[in-house]
């Protein structure tokens, strides 16, 4: 049925079955190892990204359980202080750099191209490169931990502890270079998302018709671009201090230790919103679908996402209130920390209004949204508390802060994420996760989480500092700690059940069909799981909810070529079609570039010359990547 196509064959020239067949051929990923490492399909790469991130979530969770086991009773001797330092550092670094940011970006890598109605992400080879670099960074960190070289300086690696005078060995360097890997990967994805959203939207998807999840990811991507260079400057200068004797953080030679904190938190605070904003988009999406009505206050939600993204850059000093900064500066950052509660409050009222005016259906994704409301609001309120300097000084570095940020991060981000997995799982795998098991998962996670972390507020208020490997019985913290540790088991069971449900449903779940929830956005207009080319015809959009506006069909555009990978480039504001652009073919060069880059980054922990000699193989790999290949994608 399918001989070779003539050059410039258009979709209009073929009947639908033949069209699907030809598109599948031109967009396919071949089987075998070369196909595996060479694929540039955003969905396959996102699968890997998501699966890898959840593996790191599990590993970070095991470390958390190890800490809870140790702290369950006073004066325990299960884990020594040195190992404990590595464990809490690894837990924080894994959760922040190897789980939270990557998993959110990975969800976007999967969903954004589908939601804007295009066939692949912009710069798909960069996307492949990004995954391999991320994986290499994760392996570096965990391999180092396995040989007792894991970083032990906390996830924010404050100097002078992490500097050359106190951080002996290579532990702090492992942390700093893991940062380089993960931030490089994250920046690459951010560029892809920005360009995909700005330039590859389906014809007609003007700015006011962009789905809210896509808006959130666009703001997040810009926040990544603004924030991550700060941590790269910080980690590079730290490595230089440790390796070649620079003095950025050495006060006796004109350096300054607080400089580290400024640089770290200029990244670190926006980081919180880099994790939270995608969750906001997930919540808006889930609420709209299950309230069965258009979201209340679309414009207000978009503007609050943007203003949250902007304000996120004006808060970093509130992490440094205990360092004795000038009082006027502290007051400014108190004010800005409270100001960011305003756009977040606006969002919450918009969501509540949507639910109140709609006919909400309480399926599993919605249960996680409710869990998010309850938990995140508590986290937000303790946030307003610690924004006040006197209170912060009192509870700084205590378990109160540990409780606060877990409420914000797990409540604000992980609950929506798990809800989003239940919501989009049918699209990604073609099968439903279990509604019955899902309710148990939601219950266990919600109860387990609150029972674990709420008592930590009290532990903090009665003086228990964070990051202590044990405590004397005389301080009477034992009872609450035992309670917390037992609750952590409930929380862990919830996660375990979630993993079991996901793995079982992948093969045995009920077949989903293209749109099991009756949702309004474009990703549901294509089969589940979507074919390699996403859409047989590029959709055309006339409103914010294309699948609700038209219950039976979908508007499409034709005239695209079938003999090469082709998609539509459109204008930034109105999404007016500008070109039929080609999308790059599969290539193994991003993989080799990632290998060469990884070798240089790891080598440079030991010798500065690595950067000089290592640039040669990187250069060769890059030339291989970009050298024209005379494919139909390149020729036209």
């Amino acid at each position: 049925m399918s001989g070779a196509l003539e050059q410039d064959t258009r979709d209009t020239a073929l009947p639908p079955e033949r069209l699907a067949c030809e598109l599948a051929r031109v967009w396919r990923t071949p089987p075998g190892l070369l196909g595996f490492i060479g694929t540039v399909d955003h969905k396959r790469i996102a699968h890997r990204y998501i699966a890898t991130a959840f593996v790191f979530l599990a590993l970070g969770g095991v470390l958390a359980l190890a800490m809870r086991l140790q702290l369950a009773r006073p004066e325990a001797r299960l884990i020594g202080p040195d190992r404990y330092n590595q464990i809490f550092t690894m837990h924080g670094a894994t959760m922040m750099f190897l789980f939270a940011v990557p998993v959110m970006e990975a969800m976007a890598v999967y969903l954004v191209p589908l939601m804007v109605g295009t066939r692949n992400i912009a710069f798909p080879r960069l996307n492949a490169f990004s995954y391999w670099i991320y994986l290499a960074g994760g392996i570096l960190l965990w391999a180092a931990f396995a040989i007792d070289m894991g970083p032990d300086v906390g996830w924010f690696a404050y100097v002078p502890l992490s500097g050359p005078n106190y951080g002996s060995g290579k532990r702090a360097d492992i942390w700093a270079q893991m940062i380089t890997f993960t931030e490089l990967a994250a920046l690459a994805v951010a560029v892809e998302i920005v360009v995909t959203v700005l330039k590859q939207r389906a014809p007609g998807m003007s700015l006011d018709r962009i789905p809210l999840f896509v808006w959130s990811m666009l703001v997040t991507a810009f926040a990544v671009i603004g924030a991550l260079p700060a941590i790269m400057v910080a980690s590079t200068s730290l490595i230089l201090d440790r390796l070649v004797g620079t003095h950025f953080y050495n006060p006796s030679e004109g350096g300054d230790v607080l400089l580290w904190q400024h640089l770290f938190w200029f990244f670190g605070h926006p980081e919180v919103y880099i994790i939270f904003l995608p969750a906001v988009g997930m919540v808006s999406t889930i609420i709209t679908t299950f309230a069965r009505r258009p979201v209340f206050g679309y414009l207000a939600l978009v503007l609050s996402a943007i203003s949250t993204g902007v304000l996120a850059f004006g808060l970093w000093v509130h992490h440094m209130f205990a360092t004795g900064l000038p009082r006027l500066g502290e007051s400014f950052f108190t004010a800005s920390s409270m100001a960011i509660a305003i756009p977040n409050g606006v969002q919450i009222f918009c969501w509540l209004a949507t639910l109140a005016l709609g006919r909400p259906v309480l399926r599993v994704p919605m249960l996680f949204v409710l869990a998010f409301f309850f938990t995140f609001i508590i986290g937000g309120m303790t946030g307003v508390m610690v924004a006040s300097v006197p209170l912060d000084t009192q509870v700084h570095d205590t378990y109160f802060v540990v409780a606060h940020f877990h409420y914000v991060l797990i409540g604000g981000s992980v609950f929506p994420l798990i809800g989003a997995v239940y919501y989009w799982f049918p699209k990604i795998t073609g099968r439903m996760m279990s509604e019955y098991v899902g309710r148990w998962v939601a219950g266990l996670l919600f109860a387990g989480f609150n029972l674990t972390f709420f008592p930590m507020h009290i532990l903090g208020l009665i003086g228990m500092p964070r990051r202590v490997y044990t405590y004397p019985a005389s301080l009477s913290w034992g009872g609450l700690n035992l309670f917390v540790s037992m609750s952590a088991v409930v929380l862990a069971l919830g996660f375990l059940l979630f993993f079991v449900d996901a793995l079982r449903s992948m093969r045995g779940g009920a077949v989903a069909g293209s749109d099991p929830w009756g949702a309004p956005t474009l990703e549901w207009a294509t089969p589940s799981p979507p074919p390699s080319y996403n859409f047989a015809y590029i959709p055309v959009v006339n409103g914010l909810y294309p699948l609700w506006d038209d219950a039976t069909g979908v508007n499409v555009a034709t005239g695209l070529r079938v003999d090469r990978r082709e998609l539509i480039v459109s204008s930034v504001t109105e999404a007016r079609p500008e070109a039929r652009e080609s999308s790059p073919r599969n290539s193994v060069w991003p993989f080799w570039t990632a290998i060469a880059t990884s070798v240089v980054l790891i080598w440079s922990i030991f010798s500065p010359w690595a950067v000089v000699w290592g640039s040669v193989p990187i250069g060769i790999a890059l030339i291989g990547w970009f050298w024209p290949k005379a494919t139909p994608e390149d020729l036209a």
Partner: protein
Amino acid sequence: MRQPRVVADLSKLPLHGFETASLTWWGTLAFMLIEGTGFLLTIAVYLYLVAVAPRWPIGAPPPDWRAGTATTLVLLLSLVPNVMIARAAERQDIRRVRVLLIVMAAFGTAPIPLRVLEFRSLNVLWDSNAYGSVTWFLLGLHSTHFVTDLAETFVLVAVMFTRHGENRRRFGDVQDNALYWNFVVFTWLPIYAVLYGVPRLT
């Protein structure tokens, strides 16, 4: 499955767009934003260290300005062929593009010995003190960008002299390369002012 309803015909669209209709143009812009933020932050680090130091520069005379000024002049001069090459690429004039690429490769190579001289005339080493560290870091960061773009220019010279040269996409690559070179030149100006001006102000 939903039935497709054809409402638009895109068959007349061009197969590749230039500038704002090109994905790589936007990608270049995004990378410039990332790297520009990096430069800005490094300048902020420099000024922060100035603010905490009792006197600046620390334990060294200000850098000799001659090599840095020569680099600046060469870079500014290179903007002329750079603008010309962008225009030639827009007109898809392969002969002009080839000649001008060689000119640009020469203009990119000329500042290398000057840059080496610059490092030598800083009058301080990276491990002398924080002033030396941040000065070397800032100059090194800019040199990395500059060398990277030069390498890209050399690769482009090679590509444009092959059969792959006469292709709309390659002309787009030449334009993006010219855009990035502008970025390398324009980011140098504030860095030059900081490296050579600030030690003379305080």
